[in-house]
């Protein structure tokens, strides 16, 4: 068992904290008076600062400190939360991410600029005692640490250095407690210190220096009067903090520490972080178990032994349950995905000057983790597109009799073995005429080609297609939508577009819940068995002898008045056997395109654990993977997207030929 790199662990933790901070800030932006959110953000900032310093991310710690300070003042009610402040901290949060990712980079200038805007935001809120002001306060700090402090890892010099960072310091050590040399234990600490500090930092900055040793030490902080200063809280300034006594006047820092720890401990008990590959390994084992079990039940089924049958049924039930549990393990709620868009929409609203509201629905719907990760990019494109092209400006909306604020709604729901994710806006909708004009001018379709609405909308997913007359910073360069299509295809999903002019458009992504297991239709071609993903199967029908004869030479069947091209898998796979007398056609589709596959026999449906093919077979495009059947044999899984495009090409060639 190897221990993970502590820096990597910190980065993971920091990423979570930053996510919490962002979520908190965005919530706060909606409801500025929300005290809980202020506390949440403050706590996260504080933890980030603490662990950042612990792992040597000094720039991060220093920078975060200022944001924490700002929020501390909000928390104490000294400064009201404002949109400006939230915005400034949001920007600062992005900078923190940068500091986490590249701690060695040169971020000085950016840090300064952000802190300046943060100060402006805080000052703009009408603060009497701006920390950025030139006013300074003098404090006399007396502190002594327990005798075993150094043995426990505290370095008093570090504390003194931190105080020196706060401002001008005069340090006097009290050596009176040092015992004679023969009784001196060099590990014990016998000194105490008196520090005279002149600083522009607030009182709490001094407490922060001692935050990790507060519990066992004696600390006395006195504000020295007589200096020109504008402190609004002389009472607090004179308070003496005896941190050993929890009932002291300002016990906040001491109480805060344990509270955070408790919350963390509780969280750790609920969740176990497991590397994804271990889950995949477990998944493989469960897959093999399912295969072994179906062999067992075949054996048991053909034997008369009742006891064997009973055991086999038990194993079948258990392995089924195990597989279901396993699937649930990999599932995460789509909240993880949707929460990223709150920030995106917030930024897009700022960039475009439109008023945009984001509504999310069905966030508890669960999807395979690997699916979620791969969905993020295409959804970003779709949301950007909706914000940029779909929604109108506030004036245009008002003129059209709609509310000024445009709405983007993200929703997720489960439907059978699929999850449907919908991105909907109430903007102007997709302009069909412009899509058609653009498609004709770029040669994607023939002029006056008759297309259904759905076919027309699907054109926007073609590479290089964009109807935006103006290229903006956000979209309109024609890249993106084809990426969406490619990613969704790779996930074996489909895209459906609905648009009503003037009322908005709705793009639905139907994605299989998992990438590891599919429902398949088992068919036989020649002597080989193949699996067709059931989700792609539209219908199965018999290829009658007349149709078979008639269709020689041209590969079309008419299916309810429309011509569907078909592929004879026997020919494609060169089986070299005589065809069965009654051939079947399995009609498969991706979105709007259909193609028929002629097979010898349809065996039935089969739940399939997908195995990838080795590198040696990666060039064989017809198959997307393989699976192991109940009898231990391997069956190949047909790549529907590949076959459909092959069928369409064949159709196009035939059309071109005559």
């Amino acid at each position, binding site marked *: 068992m190897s221990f993970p790199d502590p820096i990597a662990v910190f980065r993971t933790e920091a990423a979570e904290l930053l996510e919490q901070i962002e979520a908190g800030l965005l919530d706060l932006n909606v409801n500025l008076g929300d005290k809980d959110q202020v506390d949440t953000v403050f706590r996260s900032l504080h933890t980030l600062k603490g662990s950042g310093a612990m792992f040597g991310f000094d720039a991060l710690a220093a920078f975060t400190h200022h944001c924490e300070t700002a929020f501390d003042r909000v928390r104490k009610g000294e400064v009201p939360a404002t949109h400006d402040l939230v915005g400034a901290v949001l920007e600062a949060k992005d900078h923190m991410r940068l500091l986490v990712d590249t701690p060695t980079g040169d971020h000085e200038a950016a840090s300064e600029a952000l802190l300046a805007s943060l100060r402006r935001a805080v000052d703009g809120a009408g603060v009497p005692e701006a920390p950025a002001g030139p006013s300074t306060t003098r404090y006399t700090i007396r502190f002594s640490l327990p005798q075993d402090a150094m043995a426990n890892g505290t370095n008093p010099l570090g504390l003194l250095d931190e105080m020196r960072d706060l401002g001008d310091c005069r340090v006097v050590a009290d050596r009176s407690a040092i015992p004679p040399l023969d009784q001196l234990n060099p590990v014990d600490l016998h000194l105490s210190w008196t520090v005279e500090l002149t600083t522009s930092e607030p009182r709490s900055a001094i407490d922060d220096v001692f935050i990790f040793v507060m519990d066992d030490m004696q600390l006395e902080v006195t504000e020295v009067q007589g200096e020109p200063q504008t402190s609004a809280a002389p009472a607090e300034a004179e308070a003496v903090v005896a941190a050993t006594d929890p009932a002291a006047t300002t016990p906040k820092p001491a109480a805060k520490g344990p509270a955070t720890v408790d919350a963390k401990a509780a969280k750790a008990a609920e969740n176990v972080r497991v590397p994804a590959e271990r889950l995949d390994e477990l998944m493989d084992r469960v897959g093999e178990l399912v295969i072994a079990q179906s062999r067992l039940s075949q054996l048991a089924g053909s034997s008369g032994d009742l006891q064997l049958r009973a055991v086999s049924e038990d194993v079948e039930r258990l392995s089924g349950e195990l597989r279901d549990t396993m699937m649930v393990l990999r599932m995460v709620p789509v909240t993880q995905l949707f929460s990223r868009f709150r920030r995106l929409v917030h930024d897009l609203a700022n960039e475009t000057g439109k008023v945009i509201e984001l509504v999310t629905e069905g966030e508890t719907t669960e999807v395979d983790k690997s699916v979620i990760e791969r969905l993020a990019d295409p959804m970003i494109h779709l949301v950007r597109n909706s914000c940029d092209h779909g929604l109108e400006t506030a004036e245009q909306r008002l003129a059209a009799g709609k509310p000024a604020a445009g709405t983007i709604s993200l929703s997720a729901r489960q439907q059978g073995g699929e999850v449907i994710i919908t991105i909907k806006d109430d903007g102007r909708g997709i302009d069909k005429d412009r899509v058609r004009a653009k498609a004709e001018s770029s040669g994607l379709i023939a002029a006056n080609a008759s297309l259904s609405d759905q076919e027309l909308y699907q054109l926007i997913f073609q590479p290089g297609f964009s109807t935006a007359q103006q290229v903006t910073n956000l979209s309109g360069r024609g890249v993106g939508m084809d990426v969406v299509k490619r990613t969704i295809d790779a996930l074996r999903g489909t895209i459906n577009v609905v648009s009503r002019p003037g009322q908005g458009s709705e793009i639905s992504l139907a994605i299989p819940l998992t990438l590891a297991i599919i429902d398949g239709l088992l068919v036989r071609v020649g002597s080989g068995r193949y699996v067709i993903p059931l989700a792609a199967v539209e219908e199965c029908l018999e290829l009658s002898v007349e149709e078979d004869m008639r269709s020689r030479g041209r590969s079309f069947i008419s299916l309810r008045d429309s011509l569907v091209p078909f592929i004879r898998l026997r020919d494609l796979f060169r089986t070299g056997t005589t065809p069965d007398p009654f051939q079947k056609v399995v009609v498969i589709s991706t979105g709007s395109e259909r193609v028929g596959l002629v097979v010898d026999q349809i065996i039935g449906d089969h739940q399939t654990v997908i195995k990838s093919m080795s*590198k040696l*077979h990666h060039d064989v495009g017809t198959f997307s993977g393989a699976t192991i059947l109940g009898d231990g044999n*391997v069956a190949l899984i047909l790549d529907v997207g590949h076959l459909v495009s092959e069928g369409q090409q064949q159709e196009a060639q035939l059309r071109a030929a005559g």
Partner: protein
Amino acid sequence: MSEAAARTLPDALWEGREEIEVVTFDIAGEVFALEAAAVQEILDLLPETSVPGAKAFVGTVINFRGKVIPLADIRLAFGMEATQPTIDSRIVVIELEIEGEPTLTGIRTDKVHEVTTLVRSAGEPPPSVGMRWRPDFIDCLVKRGSDFIILPNLQAIFSANHEHRKSGSSTN
């Protein structure tokens, strides 16, 4: 065996060692050997599933303990005819690096003999003429008794076929 010939033996195989442990087996009447450490398992023949469209050399896949792995026929890589399996036919499963990824692959053999030790001093590079096997697919020959044992260069065989197929498909 001359010293000069021994020095030209590929060091990738011997890695400075004087002896290696190998598994010996027959393919098309010749004795071949593969380093024992690379061999995962020796299997009886299994039901095979042909992969339409794949190169004949790796035309089928088998179920190896729940994994789907390709089954290669070295004969076809050397341009020879496939033969019917016999009662002695076995599959030798080895692990190979293909494009930087460790890949399990089965190799069809006519008969598996034994695990034995080959000494470097008995080895010599493949002759460039006078053999029905392509010399660039062979690491070296090791003399034993009156016969030679062939140590095939699987990396060369698999990558040559791999690249060949890739370039073939891109012209389609």
